[in-house]
């Protein structure tokens, strides 16, 4: 358990290079229990790479990642999941040919797997775990508004619902910190609001979150603090209001045309 003011996740001096490309340089930030941290930045800024380097998809070139008091730099994703750190992918990733419920069961492996021999003989322990997870999934599906789709194959779901299912799979692992890579990319304004409310409720249940997105309105309406990345480096970090009024951020996002800044900052479309 993280005690006192110790952060749940602490990233120090994180760097990730691909050959000559410095995709992430010397990033440091923390996420506290129950906090939502936004990460924002133009296309290719290094947001996904930063998450990949934290979540074990890549081994970071340099830096330290501490989660819940454990040094977890370069840990494989499954070990991080065991500790309670789970992420979703930028591309919608669900198991297309499986039902929504089966998708969630697959996400709940840690709470379903009773050990090799118990699983093999379907022991009382295995059955008890299964029953508990089924109940948990019922609640989760209700909670995320997926109950009506429980028996639908994921590939037959509308895009927006697939994104929600992606979150459900991650939530089924019962994380303490969930990292969401562009959870609202390609969604309508209405769907975006729905996802924002969902993430707020996830946080209300005691789970911290890192949310990556381009959409400044979405991020500022959701996050406690925002980290702005540009060319792999920290440009600014602070509350949404602080960050949006930061001169470097305005310049990076909108060029020198400061006059347009306030008008456009509400819905920044970086990279264009």
């Amino acid at each position: 358990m993280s005690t006192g003011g110790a952060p749940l996740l602490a990233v120090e001096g994180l760097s990730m290079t691909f050959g000559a490309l410095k995709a992430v340089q010397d990033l440091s930030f923390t996420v506290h229990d129950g906090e939502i941290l936004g990460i924002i930045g133009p296309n290719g800024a290094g947001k996904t790479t930063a998450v990949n380097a934290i979540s074990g998809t890549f081994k970071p070139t340099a830096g330290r990642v501490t989660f819940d008091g454990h040094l977890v730099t370069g840990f494989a994703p499954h070990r991080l999941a065991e500790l309670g750190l789970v992420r979703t992918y930028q591309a919608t990733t669900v198991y297309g040919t499986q039902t929504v419920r089966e998708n969630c069961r697959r996400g709940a492996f840690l709470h379903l797997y009773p050990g090799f021999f118990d699983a093999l003989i379907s022991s009382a322990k295995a059955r008890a775990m299964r029953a508990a997870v089924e109940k948990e999934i019922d609640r989760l599906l209700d909670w995320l508004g997926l109950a009506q789709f429980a028996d639908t194959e994921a590939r037959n779901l509308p895009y927006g619902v697939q994104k929600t299912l992606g979150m459900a799979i991650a939530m089924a692992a019962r994380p303490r910190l969930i990292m969401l890579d562009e959870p609202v990319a390609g969604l309508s304004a209405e769907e975006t609001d729905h996802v924002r409310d969902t993430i707020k409720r996830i946080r209300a249940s005691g789970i911290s979150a890192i949310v990556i997105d381009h959409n400044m309105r979405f991020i500022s309406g959701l996050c406690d603090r925002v980290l702005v990345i540009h060319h792999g480096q920290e440009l600014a970090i602070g509350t949404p209001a602080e960050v949006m009024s930061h001169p470097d951020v305005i310049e990076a996002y909108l060029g020198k045309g400061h006059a347009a800044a306030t008008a456009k900052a509400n819905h920044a479309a970086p990279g264009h």
Partner: protein
Amino acid sequence: MSPQAPLSLGAAPPRTMPGAGLLAISALAGAVLLAWPIVFQGSFLVYIATLVMQFSIGACSLQLIIRTGHISMSHQAFVGIGGYTSVILVMKAGWAWHFALLAAIAAPALAGAVIGPILLRLTGKYFVLVTFLFGEIVRLVFIDWQSMTGGSNGIFEIPKPYPWMNDPTAYYYVSLGFAVACVGFCIRLMRSEIGRAIDAMREGPNLTECAGVPVFRIKVVMFIIACGLSGVMGSLNAHMNNVITPGNYGPMESLNLVVMNVLGGMTNMAGAIIGAVFLIALPELLRGYVEWQRVFYGIILIVVMASMPGGMVELLARLRSRLTGREAHLASAVAAEGRT
């Protein structure tokens, strides 16, 4: 569907409890299997069925590897390691067969434990290629290790496991018993939480690893288990044939086990058994037409792979849904797939 899937092997079968229909079919199959050597006593068909039992063990154990997303072209090499171990221990060391059988499971499992973690780092066609080479290397070892294996002539006059197994009917029932045990184990395993994780990691390895599944460790463990089980086939087959030669354990013979799974749809143990029946029975039925065998073989393979990615199991499912009027449901599923 998932962009991360290394192989498009088709989806996992739905996880349903066996219904009354399935129980009825199983009971019928059980009755046929038990009655077979009595009905066909003294016939070549008993031998064929015994072969099918043995290859079912090979095909189903290979499927444990295939389901993790790796098509191994060296499985028959592990069958061979089991076979040679059993024969050598019985003939040269004078072991009782039941102990030799244990060693015939342990030896390929051990070989799998050594080579598996290296091979399994490769995926897709690279895994196929390197396992093909590994299979060839093992075959060459069988040829070159003259003092142990008898070289390319192999080992002759292998005794049956026990004298009473000289009776083909007895050999049939023993093989049936081992097939039921091994295949049953594979089915149980794949229906468990481990099987769920295995099907998940084939369809979305990254997503599955993020759910806490130790993907690589499971692949290695499955590889070891599959190699161990293959040794059961190796021992039963070698002692039945009276002779063991390297030619039976090369990559082309491994391909046979893969094809059994392809015919069966890759993700279904029953399919692998149907594939084994087909591939063992077909050459025997076409005995008079040796030169046509390969042609038939090729045509059937192409037709199955091109028209039924789900293999013969899919064909049966289609027939069944047609019979029970569930075609509409299937059609909508197919249409939905077309949309994505």
